[in-house]
């Protein structure tokens, strides 16, 4: 038991996480819902009175409360893990990734979950921080609704259902991600 728990506290490998995510998707289907996180942003806009500005936000958002509850649960899950289910807070990225990040000026790559030097209140008022935090968030929120789904809705749910539109969206995710990673991020640190 002790051995199990010490293993449990280590970072989990992909073959535990992937099937667990599929299981969550399956249980949501069984509960009559669908797995997709990004529609919560549309719900948030609707609750905030978005219907005054666009018909896109005119829908019965009360039907989506379950998804906001799921989202709130995931915040709690993050808190629980960070507080009690972790011993090591470094990220086990590959040596080549660390070397590449060091070369573009990232301090201590992988020392924490995210590069806090960039995701900080001070960085927010630099043009680099503004691009990563404000523009980055905006593009995610705009793009996911334009594409009709995010990683959970298209990459997991859509591909699991063998939907061609989702495959096209995932190809788009990679085109965008590769452009940012290879041509934009080197200039941001």
């Amino acid at each position, binding site marked *: 038991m002790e051995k199990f728990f010490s293993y449990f506290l280590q970072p989990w*490998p992909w073959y535990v996480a992937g099937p667990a995510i599929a*299981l969550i998707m399956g249980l949501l289907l069984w509960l009559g819902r669908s797995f997709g996180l990004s529609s919560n942003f549309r719900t948030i806009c609707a609750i905030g009175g978005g219907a005054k500005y666009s018909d896109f936000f005119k829908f019965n958002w009360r039907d989506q409360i379950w998804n906001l509850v*799921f989202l709130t649960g995931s915040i709690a899950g993050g808190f629980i893990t960070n507080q009690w289910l972790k011993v090591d807070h470094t990220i086990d990225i590959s040596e080549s990734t660390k070397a590449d990040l060091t070369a573009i000026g990232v301090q201590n790559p992988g020392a924490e979950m995210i590069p806090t030097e960039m995701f900080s209140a001070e960085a927010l008022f630099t043009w680099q921080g503004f691009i990563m935090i404000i523009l980055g*968030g905006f593009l995610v929120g705009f793009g996911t609704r334009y594409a009709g789904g995010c990683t959970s809705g298209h990459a997991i749910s859509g591909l699991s259902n063998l939907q061609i539109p989702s495959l096209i969206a995932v190809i788009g995710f990679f085109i965008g991600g590769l452009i940012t990673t290879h041509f934009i991020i080197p200039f941001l640190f």
Partner: protein
Amino acid sequence: MGKYIKFFGLGILFGIVLTKAEVISWYRIYEMFRFQSFHMYGVIGSAVLIGIIIIQLIKRFNIKSFSGHTIMIVPKERVWKRYIIGGTIFGLGWALTGACPGPMFILVGNGFLMMLAVIVSAAAGTFTYGLLKNKLPH
């Protein structure tokens, strides 16, 4: 309230899994887009593989939902512009923030409060899409 508790529980599980497997890490997303580790491909690939099996089982055996209804998966519109353009815009942002919509919130739970600014910006992005929707090619 009671009808929502199961979704709260599944959300907790989702938050734990994504944190424990480092899926919410900016560095893991960067590493994925540089093809320097199998980790993220393993997570997404095995999720899709098991997901395909689950959905095929539901369809073949006509498995009913908890409340006895047929499980319906609404098909996406059969167009392509919105998926490739919207997907690319999403990808540009995903690699900047290192977080897609779920992980943005899970990171807040992990104590990274700057992600709240990312979340507000993402909501503004969705709002802007709502304003421009009818003018955009789909």
